[in-house]
Every structure is written in C-alpha cells, then in structure tokens.
C-alpha cells in the first residue's frame, strides 16, 4: 500500500470536510510504528494498547495546532515517548524505584507475558535492555530498533546529538558485556 505523505495528511486535516479521512490516513501510517515504539518501552501489551490510544487521541486534539517547525512523525514520536515515560515514572513511584532506573516490574511482565514468544536469545536481549538506565534504553531502542537518525532522536528527546551518541555507545557496550558473560551460543 502506498504511504501517504505527511504534507497531504496535514493539508486534508486542515479542511473540516476531509479531517476524518486525514486522521484515518495518519492512523494507518503511524499506528504500528508507535505501537512498537511504546511496546519496547513498557513491555506489556495491555499497557501499550492504552498508551497508543491516548497518544492518538492527543494527536487528534492537537494536530490543528501543529506547526511545521518539526516533522510530523517526530512530533508523534515525542508525544508517544512522553506518554510512555510518564507511565513508567508512575509505575516506579508505585514501586519506590529511582526514576533513572528501570522498574523491576517490566522484567516480571516480560517473563509472564502471554504475548512474548521470543527464543532464548531474544529473551536475553530484552533482559539485557532492562538492565540499562531508562535514558540509555530509550536511546538504544530508537537507534537500534526504530532505526531513527541521531538528529531525529535529538529532536524527539531534546538532547544533543553528542550526548545521544555517548548514551548509545555506553548502552551497546553494556548489552554486549551482558550477552558475552552469559552462556548463550550465537
């Protein structure tokens, strides 16, 4: 299916008559990307489902105010990231976990989830990711899995490209060490 350009979506959204059609196109284009971005951060499917819906409702409410000073998809990613971080912070406050660490509840959810059927290596990779501080995990996910450029991640997180590169490098090293110290055979 041909992907609709963001400009076309925005143009249609600005006209009352084609607003619903534009939003439908936006959903088709971004719902899966946003779902997987959130899912990798919050792990549990049901939590992700709630957050995805909240994100797109916010997008609907605020798209009219969206200015073209940033790209549409980085704007949506920013909303999704903020919603996810807010959710994770609430979870940490509930468990008395420091805000820069990852909540132990996520690792428990990963093991107990009915919607995770990865092999031993995939499970190990996710467990390695859950040992990272929150910011490094976020940067690693966006760079490695979402395949975003440093400049795009910088726009989404409001962090300098240099700091992001350092975060990613440290995160990759930690994961590497975690996997090497385990008895998994590649």
């Amino acid at each position, binding site marked *: 299916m041909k992907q609709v350009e963001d400009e076309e979506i925005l143009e249609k959204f600005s006209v009352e008559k084609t607003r*619903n059609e534009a*939003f*439908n196109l936006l*959903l*088709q284009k971004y*719902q*899966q990307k946003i*779902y*997987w971005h959130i*899912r*990798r951060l919050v792990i549990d*499917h049901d939590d992700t*489902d709630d957050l*995805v*819906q909240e994100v*797109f*409702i916010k997008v*609907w409410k605020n798209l009219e105010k969206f200015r073209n000073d940033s790209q549409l998809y980085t704007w949506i990613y920013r909303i999704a990231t903020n919603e996810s971080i807010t959710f994770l912070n609430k979870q940490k406050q509930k468990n008395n976990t420091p805000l820069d660490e990852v909540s132990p509840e996520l690792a428990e959810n990963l093991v107990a989830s009915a*919607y*995770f*059927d*990865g*092999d031993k*290596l*995939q*499970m190990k*990779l*996710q467990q390695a990711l859950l040992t990272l501080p929150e910011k490094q995990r976020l940067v690693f996910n966006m760079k*490695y*899995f979402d395949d975003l450029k440093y400049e795009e991640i910088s726009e989404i997180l409001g962090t300098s490209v240099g700091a992001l590169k350092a975060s990613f490098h440290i995160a*990759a090293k930690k*994961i*590497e060490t975690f*996997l*090497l110290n385990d008895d998994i055979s*590649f």
Partner: protein
Amino acid sequence: MNDELEDKLKNKLSGANFTVPESYFNDLSERIQTRLSLEQMVNHSDHHGFKVPDLYFEQLNAQILSRISPQVSVAKKVKMVRWWNSDLLKYSTAACFVVVTALGLYLNNHPSVSANTNPDLANEQILFDIDEQAIIDHVQTEDSKTTTSATQKELEDYILNNYSQNDIASNF
C-alpha cells in the same frame, strides 16, 4: 628539514601516539561476532519476540476512531441558546404565574381570621375567655345598682314626659 617533518607526520599517522585499553585486541573478534549476531537478530526478526493478539491492528484503527467520533459529534451538536430564550426559563415563568394566581384566588375566597376586624367577634372571644360565674355576678350587681339608682321623682317625670294621659289611663 623537510625529511624531518615528514618523519614526524608519518609517526603521528601510524598511530604511534595512540593507545588502547589493556587486552583490547584479545577479545575484539569475539565482541565483533556478538555485535554481528545482534545486528542479524534485529534485522531478521520482526518484533524480537513480542507479538499482539490476532487482528489487533485491524481493530485498533476502529477503536481509536470510535473514541474520537463522540467528540466530533458533540462538537457539531453544540448550539448556542440565549438564556432568556431557553425552555427552562419559559416553563419556570409559567409555573410561577400559575402559583401566584392560584394563591391570590385562594386568599380572596378564604380571608384569614387575623385579617378580620369585626368588633362583635372580638368581644365574643373576650367573653368566651372570661369565667361564666364572674359574668353572672357582674350582671346581677349592675341590675341592682340600676334599680336603686332611679328615684321615685325621676320615674314619675320619665312617665309623664314619654306617655300620653290616655296611655297611662288604659294601662294603670
């Protein structure tokens, strides 16, 4: 002079002045292999072990749209109504009118006791409150006083002044 400069540059570019962590090269190949495996895993696996319920994405679209649709329809239905044109005001005004009219009619047909200033009724109420024996005693005392107060001369004058001689002759 030029040869000396050239040697210095060669030394610098060969990395003679750079250092690496201790035993860096010992496990470099293993680390490269790990990184490569990781890369392959990321590239060849769709969602790295995560999955969603069947038809989830097909329904997600509709689910989000259904949460947005009520807001759209509510926004369209909102109608500005001035408060003095509202039905509530009309009905409450009519109700007040009916209540006031009914109250007026009722008071007109059923005057209250307090509004009545008839002196006979007021005297009757006072007499009702006084002990019966006290009234009898009072009347008897007043009678006896009246009887004894008129003299014989006064009675004769009263009769002569008010009655004719014929009346007196026929009655006495």
